[in-house]
């Protein structure tokens, strides 16, 4: 096989190799492309040129810890991400039950929640609800330890399309509906 004859050809080989590599290419990797017939300094210069060639195009040639790689420009990533829409994550049962207890029994402490669910409340569960701005602390109960009292927020009502908690299905509705013996 003949070798590359000019700078354009060498850049072409580099470009194709970088575009088709599944991981970043180190300088040593790229020297292999030219079977040892290239100086490191030349390679660096070619990479610089290649980087500039792509400046106004769709990808960036960037250097990361393990080498060089092409990646989509950030403004295009926003479109590309549409190809693989994230599967909507779901809250765990613990999160949903904690939320339900806070919604129906507020204001409640963690102790109340633990009493009702019969298990300890993982701090992570409360954090998820607080970070979502669905639950916040509205006070402390005046007992030893002064535990925080949690309640649902207006933002929670907004996100569930409710104007007021009283629009939640009242509990009688389903405690009765469990035995619809005669219709």
């Amino acid at each position: 096989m003949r070798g590359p004859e000019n700078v354009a050809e060498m850049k072409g080989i580099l470009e194709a190799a970088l575009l088709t590599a599944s991981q970043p290419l180190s300088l040593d990797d790229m020297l292999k492309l030219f079977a040892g017939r290239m100086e490191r300094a030349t390679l660096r210069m070619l990479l610089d040129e290649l980087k500039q060639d792509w400046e106004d195009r769709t990808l960036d040639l960037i250097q990361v810890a393990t080498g060089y790689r092409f990646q989509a420009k950030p403004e295009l990533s926003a479109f590309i991400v549409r190809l693989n829409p994230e599967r909507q994550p779901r809250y765990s049962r613990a999160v949903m039950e904690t939320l339900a207890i806070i919604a129906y029994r507020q204001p409640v402490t963690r102790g109340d929640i633990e009493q009702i669910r019969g298990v300890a409340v993982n701090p992570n569960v409360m954090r998820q609800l607080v970070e979502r701005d669905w639950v916040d602390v509205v006070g402390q109960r005046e007992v030893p330890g002064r535990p925080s009292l949690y309640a649902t927020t207006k933002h929670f009502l907004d996100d569930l399309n409710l104007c007021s908690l009283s629009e939640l299905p009242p509990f009688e509705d389903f405690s009765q509906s469990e035995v619809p013996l005669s219709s």
Partner: protein
Amino acid sequence: MLVTTSEIKINGELLTELPLDLYIPPDALEVYLESFEGPLDLLLYLIRKNNLDILDIPMAKLTVQYMDYVDKMRAINLELAADYLLMSAMLIEIKSRMLLPTPAEVEEEDDPRAELVRRLMEYEAIKLAAQRLDEMPKVGEGFQVAHAYYQHIAEIKPPEVDVDALVEAWKNVVKRAKLNSNHQLGRAELSVREHMSLVLRRLQAGGMCEFSELFDFETGGLPKLVVNFLAILELAKEGLIKITQQAAFSTIYLQASNVE
């Protein structure tokens, strides 16, 4: 051009020539046969190697040899032997049919070897097709596909929750806690609970709050005022707020218990 077969090595030496009598040393049989893909492959090789006319296959000789292989293979690899045994049975059947006198009415194409020839030809075609597929360029070997990287910058969507999911969760809680009888929650009580939170949240700002400030006389309407009042009573009962009045008929002040 002959159909190529894999290299056959016996004791490290390349076996290039197959003896004309097709004799295979017993200790080499396993190595030898493993380089073939089965009895059809071996038969095809023997025919090609010896430049036999497939229609003149020396059936008797071939059959005897096959039976000999099978005997030796039984000790080594029963599964493989079964394949060769089947082939031997086929060869014997062909041979025996050829020995029988041909009834006059039987047409010429009913040659007992026809089926064997058909199978050999089909197998040979597949063998060639497999070689061609193997030679065809494939992703990662013959050509490289673009694999540039993109930064995954999508905002992480939080889970969706609807009222039904919330109610379902509450049902589970209640079912497990067996709260049914004591803790039925109606709309009214839910409203009270909501107002308890609202009042408490407002009092967190600190300091005293006038009792009347906690009531929204303009937009509330009577039911809401009542609910609000019930909420304040409930808060007091649960010790969450302190209610103070310096003298009769003077201003009533409210304060969250936890705020000094």
